């Protein structure tokens, strides 16, 4: 339980002060809708690069990666290795010239330029819904965490407020702060705060990992403390039964490395918006590459705490009897049942009605993996640095939320409002709309926050949403950018078919040990997967290929656009970027090659 003192509160308040202060400092610079929604397209590459990484460092990363580290072990690092990093290289080298060069103001707008109006409308609508959903999940996760860690309990007791209000208080507090700084400083404010949060996460988690490793006796001590399969990225990956995630190599490679990661990093406006805010094409292409460098090292900060939590000894109730001055003294240390039934520092889930630990179908206690990282913080941090650790956690939630809100603003203002509601407004008008879209977006997120309660792993929920909406999307962009024959009708029908395929697949399959419903199998159960992660990967793979095949098929049956209209939008019709004139080692390609070599080295090392 978090016992916070004045020092902890001081650090947290200081952070809130800086966050809002940055918004305030940027407010006078917001003169046009471009300043507000695109940060004026004037930021340096390193800022955008760190923000590119941080935008994704929300709830799903910090808590979810720790949870997956505890649940699946080092295999989680695959999210980084093959998935994210190669995807970031791909988007920087091959896709950014079209995003940035086309002068599109958002990802859906790029779809209108390349394909047609209806494809854009479809993408803009699904994206707007998704951002609201994601930021709602961020908010919900944060409020739950504040409740579980009893962060505000002392404050509430001192004020004589009912403890039931903590959930709402956390949501309103985080929403108000995010609203304040985005309302004032727009995307620039969000990006600046994402960079601030990047450094804060390192400051909060590095000492945690160092203390944890010291406690278990270093890297070799950690290896000895957890099952052997936990410490390998690749070993046992050839068959589903021999690795903790229960996914075999094709599911892993295709689902995670290619479809999910590429779908996310290459098409999600949430991250792309930071690269599109940089000052020129050269910087825009470098942004994802700069982000990839710290991304390689982040498993050490966010996955390892989860593995450490499993590896540490489980606390048990103990009675120590000793004789002191002739008197026999019993010291009884009682540990709550959910902790004792857990593994390491990961507690078991309690049934809220009976108060007994919940069991899986095979009689094992169901573990609350989302608590792995927070429990590590509470276990190792004394007051003082505990404030810093909690602030880092809060910061990650808020910036995850902020990224979603700014993405929502731009898509709503440019792709929905300006395109379909009111076309002839002045620039000033659209800036005001952008500002008030912030308010609307945050209110909708609060609504979803109260509705998101069903999964035991936040990341599984997000992956599920991404696999419905994002996985088919990557096929559309890939064909759009590299195949000039692809048509608007093709893209549109491909997207619909892809999303339908994802839903159908999810409705027909079920992970073992799960009941039909939100976990899948809501039509009929035709196939069982060993884990919900494996199911998600395969959903994504089906969505991707159905979209790919339908888009190609329909494109051949419909009339292609003339080549002249596609200059700057399709690879074969676009002149090479300026960087071709630079000395070889100054080109983004050289940086990309260096990163790729480093990733391969890391993967060999942690085989």
């Amino acid at each position: 339980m978090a016992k916070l003192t004045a020092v902890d509160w001081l650090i947290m308040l200081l952070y809130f002060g800086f966050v809002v202060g940055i918004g305030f400092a940027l407010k006078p610079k917001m003169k046009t809708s471009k300043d507000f929604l695109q940060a004026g397209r004037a930021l340096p590459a390193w800022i955008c690069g760190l923000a590119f990484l941080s935008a994704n460092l929300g709830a799903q990363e910090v808590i979810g990666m720790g949870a997956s580290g505890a649940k699946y072990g080092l295999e989680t690092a695959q999210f980084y290795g093959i998935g994210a990093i190669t995807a970031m290289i791909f988007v920087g080298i091959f896709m950014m010239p079209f995003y940035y060069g086309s002068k599109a103001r958002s990802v859906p707008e790029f779809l209108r330029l390349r394909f047609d109006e209806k494809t854009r409308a479809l993408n803009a609508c699904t994206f707007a819904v998704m951002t609201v959903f994601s930021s709602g999940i961020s908010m919900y996760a944060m409020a739950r965490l504040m409740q579980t860690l009893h962060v505000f309990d002392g404050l509430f007791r001192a004020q004589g407020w009912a403890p039931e209000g903590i959930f709402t208080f956390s949501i309103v507090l985080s929403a108000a702060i995010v609203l304040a700084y985005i309302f004032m400083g727009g995307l620039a404010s969000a990006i600046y705060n994402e960079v601030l949060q990047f450094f804060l996460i390192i400051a909060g988690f590095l000492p945690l990992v160092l203390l944890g490793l010291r406690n278990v006796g270093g890297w070799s001590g950690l290896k000895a403390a957890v099952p052997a399969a936990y410490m390998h990225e690749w070993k046992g990956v050839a068959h589903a039964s021999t690795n903790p995630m229960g996914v075999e190599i094709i599911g892993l490679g295709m689902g995670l490395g290619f479809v999910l990661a590429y779908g996310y990093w290459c098409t999600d406006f949430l991250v792309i918006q930071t690269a599109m805010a940089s000052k020129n094409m050269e910087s825009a292409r470098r942004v994802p590459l700069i982000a990839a460098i710290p991304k390689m090292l982040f498993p050490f900060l966010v996955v390892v705490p989860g593995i450490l939590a499993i590896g540490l000894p489980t606390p048990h109730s103990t009675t120590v009897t000793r004789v002191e001055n002739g008197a026999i003294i019993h010291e009884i240390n009682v540990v709550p049942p959910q902790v004792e039934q857990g593994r390491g520092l990961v507690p078991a889930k309690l049934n809220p009605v009976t108060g007994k630990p919940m069991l899986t179908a095979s009689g094992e206690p169901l573990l609350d993996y989302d608590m792995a990282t927070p429990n590590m913080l509470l276990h190792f941090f004394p007051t003082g640095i505990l404030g810093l650790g909690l602030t880092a956690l809060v910061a990650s939630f808020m910036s995850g939320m902020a990224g979603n809100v700014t993405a929502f603003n731009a898509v709503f203002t440019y792709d929905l409002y300006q395109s379909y509601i009111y076309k002839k407004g002045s620039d000033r008008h659209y800036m005001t709309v952008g500002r008030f879209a912030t308010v609307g977006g945050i209110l909708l997120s609060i609504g979803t926050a109260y509705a998101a309660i069903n999964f035991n792993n936040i990341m599984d929920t997000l992956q599920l949403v991404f696999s419905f909406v994002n996985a088919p999307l990557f096929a559309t962009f890939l064909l759009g950018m590299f195949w000039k024959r692809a048509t608007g009708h093709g893209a549109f029908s491909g997207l619909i078919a892809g999303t339908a395929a994802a839903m159908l697949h999810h409705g027909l399959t079920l992970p073992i040990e799960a009941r039909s419903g939100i976990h899948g199998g809501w039509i009929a159960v035709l196939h069982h997967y060993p884990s919900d992660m494996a199911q998600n990967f395969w959903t994504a793979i089906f969505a991707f290929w159905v979209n790919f095949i339908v888009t190609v098929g329909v494109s051949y049956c419909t009339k292609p656009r003339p080549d002249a209209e596609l200059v700057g939008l399709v690879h074969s019709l676009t002149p090479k970027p300026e960087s071709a004139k630079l000395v070889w080692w100054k080109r983004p390609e050289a940086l990309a090659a260096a990163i790729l070599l480093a990733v391969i080295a890391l993967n060999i090392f942690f085989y």
Partner: protein
Amino acid sequence: MDLDLRIPIGLMFALVGAILTAFGLKSDGNVALYAKSLGINVNLWWGLVMAVFGLTMFWFGQAGQMRVEKERDGKKKKAAS
């Protein structure tokens, strides 16, 4: 967006570092408090690390900001003459 971001980041880290260091010094030798962190005074040590990092960042930020402002003044003068 001509606000050098290293200035606010540096400032914040320096302040948090100073708070942690001061608290660490005050609570130094408190065995019960630092039992959690394996007997290490993490507040003091990590506070120092953060303060040094913050000041370095702040210093580079100031230098960068000055350079940008000088460049802008130079451009203005050129435009005026």
